[in-house]
């Protein structure tokens, strides 16, 4: 084999390690048949991958014939995704056993999915984007349907599958059109060819189709059709994982592909993106107002946050793209921490067979479990963007970037929608503190640890916003 060297493997060592580790776990699971062991080993594998990623920080290189890029941006996303994996493991640890269906394959599939997300962040070739998207998604289809003999879970899995496969079709056809317009799928070659292409419209259409496909994946409106159903039906640790990692992977790939390869079509696509942002913010927030089930409410809230994340994208073609990248990464970090925290609280209150998930079940939480409800309060405030939380810092920087880019009206829409969102977040607060009730909470060490970590993260990381932002800005997107 020509043209490959050991450096290629070294550059993507975190991903390779994770994949090989997953293979090892398949064997372990086959011989020991104990899900606990598999889970612990999976956690160990993730920690090792984090260490390997940390070593990579500061590299800027391409690997495998320029199909993958390892740069600060990719490493940032690696860490986010790996941390999400660890947090998900913490959420799933007790939940899976408590519900009676713990299986080792769950953790193995999660590792594959995480590797797919990492590949999406590093992908510098459109085919790799497509394959990584599938590697991220296919385990998720299975994980969503994991609860045996449960109609909701199986339905969620099927709907997620149909939605995801449909999205993949769009992405693929977009890649085909771009290949047709430029004769290349490596982003570097696409950029070079895009300048001299004689089918600029086809290039634009291909880019738009990829946007549509990835829009399905990250649940932008109007591609969000079955997302709340999927979030509601899937087992809650899977929902928590999906909410963050599908967005992280999707946006990471979206940014890299568009900023690196399509700055030339930015003028055409920016109005489209702005429209998508507004639609997503409005529909996500308004629909959330009407929800009574906390999982569905958080699902629509998640959709609205996808709108905010997309807002960072509006400025991608301008000179401010570096700020766009920074605001995206920072908001993603804020969203990850807050989201997992909120889902941890949901799991603490959830009982079997989908009970314990309505707002009424939170009544009286403030009196009986003050610490837990205080944690939930912090998470809800962070979602709404109220200081002194990380969510506030994320929104602040995001709106500032958008303003500086000249999209004041978009920032105003964002602020208004944040105010609207406060309504439904605070509704939960009202139930927790001002209604009477006698909730039962599952208190379990690992779950409490996750809640504690995320609460601390949401507040204290806010104090460290400055250094974090600096780190995110150094996460340079190696422009090809």
């Amino acid at each position, binding site marked *: 084999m020509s043209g490959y060297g050991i450096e290629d493997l070294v550059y993507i060592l975190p991903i390779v390690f994770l994949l090989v580790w997953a293979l090892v776990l398949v064997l372990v699971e086959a011989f020991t048949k104990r899900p606990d062991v598999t889970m612990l080993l999976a956690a160990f594998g993730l920690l090792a991958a984090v260490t390997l990623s940390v070593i990579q920080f500061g590299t800027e290189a391409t690997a495998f014939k320029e199909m993958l890029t390892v740069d600060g941006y990719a490493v940032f996303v690696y860490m986010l995704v790996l941390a999400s994996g660890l947090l998900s493991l913490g959420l799933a640890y007790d939940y899976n056993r408590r519900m009676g269906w713990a299986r080792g394959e769950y953790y193995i599939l999660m590792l594959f999915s995480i590797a797919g997300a990492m590949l999406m962040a590093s992908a510098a070739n459109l085919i790799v984007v497509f*394959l990584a998207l599938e590697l991220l998604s296919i385990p998720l289809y299975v994980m969503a349907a994991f609860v045996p003999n449960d109609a909701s879970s199986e339905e969620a899995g099927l709907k997620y599958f149909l939605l995801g496969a449909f999205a993949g079709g769009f992405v693929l056809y977009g890649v085909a059109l771009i290949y047709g317009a430029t004769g290349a799928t490596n982003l570097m070659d696409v950029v070079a060819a895009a300048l001299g292409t004689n089918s600029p419209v086809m290039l634009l259409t291909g880019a738009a189709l990829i946007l549509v496909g990835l829009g399905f994946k990250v649940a932008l409106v109007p591609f969000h059709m079955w997302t709340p159903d999927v979030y509601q039906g899937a087992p809650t640790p899977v929902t928590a994982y999906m909410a963050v990692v599908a967005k992280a992977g999707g946006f990471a790939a979206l940014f890299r592909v568009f900023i690196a390869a399509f700055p030339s079509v930015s003028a055409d696509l920016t109005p489209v993106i702005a429209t998508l942002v507004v639609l997503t913010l409005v529909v996500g927030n308004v629909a959330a107002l009407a929800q009574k089930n906390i999982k569905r409410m958080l699902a629509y809230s998640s959709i609205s946050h996808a709108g905010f994340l997309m807002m960072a994208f509006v400025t991608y073609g301008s000179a401010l793209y570096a700020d766009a990248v920074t605001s995206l990464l920072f908001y993603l970090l804020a969203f990850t921490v807050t989201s997992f925290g909120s889902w941890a609280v949901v799991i603490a209150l959830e009982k079997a067979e989908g009970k314990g998930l309505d707002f009424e079940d939170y009544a009286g939480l403030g009196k009986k479990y003050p610490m837990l409800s205080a944690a939930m309060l912090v998470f809800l405030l962070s979602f709404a963007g109220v200081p002194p939380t990380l969510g506030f810092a994320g929104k602040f920087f995001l709106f500032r970037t958008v303003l500086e880019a000249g999209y004041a009206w978009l920032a105003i829409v964002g602020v208004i929608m944040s105010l609207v969102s406060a309504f439904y977040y605070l509704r939960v607060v009202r139930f927790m503190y001002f209604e009477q009730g006698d909730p039962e909470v599952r208190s379990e060490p690992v779950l409490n640890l996750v809640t504690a970590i995320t609460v601390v993260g949401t507040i204290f990381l806010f104090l460290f916003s400055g250094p974090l932002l600096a780190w995110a800005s150094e996460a340079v997107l190696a422009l090809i």
Partner: protein
Amino acid sequence: MVAIEYYVILSAILFTLGIVGVLIRRNAIVIFMSIELMLNSANLAFIAFARQYNELNGQVFVFFVMTVAAAEVAVGLALMVTIFRTKHSIDVDQLSSLKG
């Protein structure tokens, strides 16, 4: 020789038919078949462009797409069989236990 554009237009027609199929059919298996049609149409486009550029890259991509399609079929049909066992239906209109 027939111009490449004609092949690509044929692929566009098939792609659109696949999309319409996904949107109007209610039987989950037929929806999935429409998605396969979409993937197949992208394959046709790839092969046509590969011919135009006289490079084999397009054909290799089709290889990968077929693999992905096979993987999706395995998982998708497993999901449908499972749901059918529980609900005795794969009509997506009847899968509405998740409305809240």
